């Protein structure tokens, strides 16, 4: 069972469930942020996009202190797979489960657009359905998505191979022109050192049906499904 955490202001929780249940065929459940514990049969935790707590103070800063986050931390510390998209990525950074921070987009604009992403690592539970170097087309929709890490941390991320997805051109070239929001080193998604927690600004759950523009999001969410099935029954 895949647990989708619902904060006040989350708005991609049901899209995430649609992708998991209707497209990928795995059971899921919404978990309210005030719950003290994840369901005991949760095999993966998803923190969806949205505007938790109205983005007050800083994006994700309040959600970090939701009661459920203590158990999400315990789940991650025990090696459980956690995937945060967009606001979920911001929450994971604020909670210290992932390094760095997400800043206001360089151009100040809220961006809602398809972007291309180069898969830098295909050996994570979130990308194992992809070939290394594969280019995915998945939408972003955010105002605060510029990934920031101070230079020493950025160097450590590269050295530890924690950068999983980078904004790129359709041909896979990572350059300034394909950086939509001013993210450091075109970073769109990272994992923790252990590799069981990922945060990404793009929305794989919005790219699972040909009717709405593409299915590359299935690569990310499908990888997670495969990883869960590989280690236990979903």
């Amino acid at each position, binding site marked *: 069972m895949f647990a989708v955490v619902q904060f006040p202001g989350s708005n991609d929780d049901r899209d995430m469930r649609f992708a998991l249940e209707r497209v990928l065929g795995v059971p899921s459940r919404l978990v309210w942020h005030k719950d003290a514990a994840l369901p005991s049969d949760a095999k993966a935790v998803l923190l969806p996009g949205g505007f938790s707590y109205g983005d007050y*103070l*800083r994006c994700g*800063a309040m959600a970090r*202190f939701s009661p459920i986050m203590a158990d999400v931390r315990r789940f991650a510390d025990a090696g459980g797979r956690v995937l945060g998209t967009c606001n979920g990525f911001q929450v994971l*950074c*604020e909670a210290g489960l992932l*390094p*760095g*921070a997400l*800043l*206001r*987009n*360089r*151009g*100040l604009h809220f961006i809602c657009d398809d972007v291309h992403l180069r898969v830098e690592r295909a050996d994570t539970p979130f990308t194992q359905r992809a070939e290394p170097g594969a280019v995915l087309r998945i939408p972003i929709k955010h105002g605060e998505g*510029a990934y*920031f*890490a*101070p230079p020493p941390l950025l160097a450590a991320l590269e050295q530890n191979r924690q950068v999983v997805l980078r904004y790129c051109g359709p041909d896979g070239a990572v350059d300034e022109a394909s950086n939509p929001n*001013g993210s450091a080193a075109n970073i769109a998604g990272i994992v923790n050192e252990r590799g069981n927690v990922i945060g990404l600004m793009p929305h794989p759950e919005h790219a699972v049906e040909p009717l709405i523009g593409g299915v590359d999001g299935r690569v990310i969410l499908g990888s997670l499904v495969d990883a869960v099935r590989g280690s236990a029954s979903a």
Partner: protein
Amino acid sequence: MKATVHVKLKRDVLDPQGKAIQRACAALGYDAVRDIRQDKLFEVELDAHDETAARALLDELCQKLLANPVIEDYRVVAVEA
């Protein structure tokens, strides 16, 4: 007690809002304005025995909530009874 806490983006962090405001100044003809950074100022009312206790509490609060130490610096500007 009343306290004022100043939280600002670290110098090496880009502040696009400040940049946009600076450009607006230039557009209005205020060429003398060379740079603007937009920060946060918190006015806090709190119960504390003395200024030392208040500052200790505010320091803890900044580290946990008011500031994100990855991108922001903070300073307790004033504490008054």
